[in-house]
């Protein structure tokens, strides 16, 4: 300690050190991005592997086939007949089929309201009691009546009806099997899983009349094609970017491609040629989905309850028939049946770049953390800068003796240095105004959060338009207001900036552990906030702290380009989504699925952006 402290003390005063932070911040952002781009390389990603030895995927012979085909065709015919019929009739018929297979079935009605729409339906499910189990654990086989695109999931529903009948004949199950047919792909599964855990909103969602044990795994079948399919598309993203255990995904991949020789696709990458480009694209698509955090299939609703779930979707036109899909599910269920403990061995945080390549959290987390840390570094730098006293007025034309800067003689273990006094004295900081400004800006976000989550579908686009307009002038208005009420001193200006960045860095670092992708995207979009004002100057003179008019205008325009409404519109334009639909989807996610991406947008990103914009907006 005695050895380092003089060096550290001397370093602390080095003026070059105070110049460093902006460059360091920029470097961190750059490293963060480059890091991400390196991940698809062979050296940084890993082959997937099964961690949980009990799973033994693909080690059993599958018997589904043969005469099952005829029964399946009959069920398929029944399902087609029911299409478009009233819900009650569908439920009755499904209940009958379950009954004829010798299973106890039950129904659950639900009704949700979001963005002015009402989502109603009825889930039908049956429980196959394990011949060798004690009803403490269950695995779930799900098919939604209509899939995410709203098409009738005829083969999926027929297949699980047939599988229910087929599974009933086997005596080897040690976990209960729940066969669930939900009325749609988003609200139905949520209502069911909420009610299963007694977390449902009563009375709009009915409780479940019969239940089984703790859910160990969920497989969703989605096959709306009326021809043979080519490959299996595995969808695995949960609500809020949570992912199922990698072992479940690996089991499905290993069974489908290893045992049954089917092609496996993920993230809608139908043709994956294992090039760097394709890997990167797969990974980024996965990250975008994770960042949005919305429901991507019936399985998504299960994941927040710590129930690992995936959707198997039949895609393309090829040589695989429904019996192959059935065998695939049979084999996966045999593996799940082997589980001795809840999925825990493998990774919960991963990015997949191909069906058999992934990076785990330890490898990818630094990129988001580096981006988040850049804000903290700038916050610390601004804090230190805000504590420095203004330089003494030097008469430049007539150097006088009295105008010599005061100096201090500093001795450290025999070394002596003469340091201008201004670099070591620290001013008291006036923190009340900056702290209140930052806190109130963050609370301001709650208003938008409330409006966008509680408006009807028809009004949402108008609110968005209105918000975009207001957002254009709001920074200037606030800057003007602050200028007239309590004109910020250079120190308060720096502190305001510092606290805003500190909070942003803190939120993003926390978020990176929960939803890596969202944190990274918000971090990158907010990166300009680190460099507004005069970041490269260490002085606290008003002319160096407050940016010039030209700079203000340029920064305002730059910030407006990355403002939340502009980014949202750009994203919608790029993917060809209607803004109103997207907002309605978000409101639905908030009301039904417990999605909190909006909270990050309105209470973290937007306030940070607004604080930055207020700092650079010219006051009128």
């Amino acid at each position: 300690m005695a050895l380092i402290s003089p060096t550290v003390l001397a370093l602390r005063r080095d003026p070059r050190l105070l110049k460093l932070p902006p460059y360091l911040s920029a470097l961190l952002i750059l490293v963060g991005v480059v890091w991400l781009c390196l991940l698809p390389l062979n050296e940084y990603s890993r082959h997937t592997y099964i961690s949980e030895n009990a799973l033994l995927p693909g080690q059993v012979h599958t018997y589904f086939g043969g005469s099952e085909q005829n029964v399946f065709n009959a069920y398929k015919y029944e399902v087609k007949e029911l299409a478009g019929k009233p819900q009650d009739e569908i439920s009755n018929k499904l209940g009958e089929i379950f009954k004829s297979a010798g299973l106890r079935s039950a129904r659950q009605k639900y009704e949700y309201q979001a963005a002015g729409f009402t989502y109603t339906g009825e889930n039908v499910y049956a429980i196959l009691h394990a011949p060798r189990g004690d009803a403490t654990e269950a695995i779930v086989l799900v098919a939604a009546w209509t899939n995410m695109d709203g098409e009738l999931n005829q083969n999926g529903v027929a297949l699980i009806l047939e599988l229910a009948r087929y599974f009933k004949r086997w005596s080897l199950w040690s976990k209960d099997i729940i066969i669930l047919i939900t009325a749609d792909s988003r609200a139905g599964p949520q209502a069911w899983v909420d009610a299963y855990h007694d977390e449902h909103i009563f009375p709009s969602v009915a409780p479940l009349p019969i239940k089984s044990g703790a859910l160990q795994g969920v497989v969703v079948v989605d096959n709306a094609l009326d021809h043979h399919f080519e490959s299996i598309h595995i969808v695995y993203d949960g609500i809020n970017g949570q992912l199922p255990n990698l072992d479940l995904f690996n089991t499905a991949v290993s069974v489908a491609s290893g045992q049954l020789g089917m092609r496996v696709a993920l993230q809608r990458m139908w043709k994956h040629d294992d090039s760097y480009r394709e890997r990167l694209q797969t990974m980024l698509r996965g990250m975008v989905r994770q960042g949005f955090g919305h429901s991507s299939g019936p399985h998504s609703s299960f994941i927040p309850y710590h129930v690992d779930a995936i959707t198997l979707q039949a895609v393309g036109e090829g040589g695989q028939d429904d019996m192959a899909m059935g065998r695939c599910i049979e084999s996966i269920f045999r593996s799940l049946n082997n589980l001795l403990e809840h999925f825990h061995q493998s990774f919960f945080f991963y990015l997949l770049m191909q069906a058999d390549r992934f990076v785990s959290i330890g490898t990818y987390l630094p990129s988001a953390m580096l981006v988040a840390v850049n804000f903290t570094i700038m916050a610390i730098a601004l804090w230190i800068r805000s504590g420095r006293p203004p330089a003494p007025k030097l008469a430049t034309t007539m150097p006088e003796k009295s105008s010599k800067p005061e100096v201090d003689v500093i001795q450290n273990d025999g070394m002596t240095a003469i340091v201008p006094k201004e670099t070591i004295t620290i001013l008291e900081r006036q923190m009340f105004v900056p702290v209140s400004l930052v806190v109130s800006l963050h609370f301001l976000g709650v208003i938008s959060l409330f409006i966008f989550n509680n408006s009807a579908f028809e009004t949402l686009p108008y609110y968005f338009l209105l918000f975009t307009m207001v957002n254009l002038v709001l920074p200037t208005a606030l800057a003007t207001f602050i200028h007239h009420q309590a004109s910020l001193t250079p120190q308060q200006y720096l502190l305001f900036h510092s606290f805003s960045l500190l909070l942003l860095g803190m939120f993003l670092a926390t978020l990176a552990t929960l939803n890596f992708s969202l944190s990274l995207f918000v971090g990158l979009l907010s990166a300009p906030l680190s460099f507004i004002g005069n970041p490269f100057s260490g002085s606290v003179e008003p002319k160096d702290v407050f940016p010039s008019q030209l700079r203000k205008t340029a920064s305002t325009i730059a910030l407006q380009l990355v403002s939340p409404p502009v980014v949202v519109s750009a994203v919608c334009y790029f993917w060809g989504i209607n803004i109103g639909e997207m907002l309605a989807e978000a409101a639905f996610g908030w009301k039904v699925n417990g999605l909190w991406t909006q909270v990050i947008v309105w209470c973290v990103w937007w306030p940070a952006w607004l604080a930055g914009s207020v700092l650079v907006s010219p006051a009128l």
Partner: protein
Amino acid sequence: MMVIDRRKALLFGSATALRLLLFFAFPSLPDLLTGRVEISTPVTSFKRLQEGLFLYTHNVSPYDGGVFHQAPLLLSLFALIPSSLFSPLTSLLYIALDLLCTNALIQIAESREAGSSRLFTSPRKELKWDSIAIGAAYLFNPFTIATCIGRPISVFTNCAILHAIAKAVSGKPMSSILALGLASYLSLYPILLLPPLILLCYDRQARDKKETPPISTFAIKYTSLFFATKVWFLYISNILTGGSWEFISSTYSVQLLLPDLTPNMGLWWYFFIEIFDSFREFFLGIFWLHLGGYVGGLCIRIRRQPLFIITTLLGIFAIFKPYPSLSDTSLYFAMLPLYRHLFPLMRYTFFALATILYATLLGPAFYYLWIYAGSGNANFFYAITLVWSLGLSEIVADSLFAVLRDEWEVERPEMKGKDVRQI
């Protein structure tokens, strides 16, 4: 007639309004916060109090099951509240407790004890915050608000401690010691505050009166009073619980021996989960010795500023006591603003506060990953409690440095504004 200060009334009014809003406009919030491990520990949890109360009102000994670890007096207090109005009235009770705390805090601030005690007057004592501002800093501290909404019984202890200090600085040693007796009756650890509190009482009395008894007689007198108070409280509790001494083992020995290892913000639970059973007693002794060890050292080194000893001890309790929670931190943060004049001497406030803020955000996130999402584990949360404790100890150590530096500059005025150097 009492003259009500308008600013004080405004402060109390707005703080009450805010709490009422949180209690009644967000009815799920109190339950949510009551369940948070950061607020409710096994010995302070409001849920456990309700459970104990239920057993108590149904004539079953609440101390039988090993769930309830709180003092019997609280049971009889809460049993007085009619069950039909239980939740609104308890809300009002906790709001009232917060206001009482603030009132005591304002008294402490107005006594100016922080800036100049009997033996030491800080050269910076003019640099201070107004007592109302200090009260506001306590009442509007998010930690205090969260504690109030979460209703742990540690609020009672905090209130008793603050009143003990307030009485001590207003020269009423008798009531001060009684209040401390109540605090240590409710939860054991305030007993460690007895030595500095006696010093504080003695200093205040010696300053106000011409002739004073020697400190030894003073100390003996009030120590005996303290223990008499404790015995009296225990005796009443014995009567209240129907003549049984069962409550002692489930209240005080739980605090001493740490049988309940529910996670909390402290440093004990994880350590005692991991430790081999044969070392348990040894390390319990070490941990308690560590906690108690500060009392003697601080009383000797900063003898001249007893109020600061108490403040620092409160900070140390918030880090090192067996079941710490946010309410302990909020109590420490209530006392710190009294030392406004030391802030310019503190060196790492920004880093310490940033660390604490980081831990405040990451703690719940990691707890969520561990308990709900299942994707993290206990190490995640424990790591954050370490960071939290690091942030708090930075503040404790830094304020200690500042107070020593302040004293040193009085002794050696020529060193004012110069760097200290380790030799």
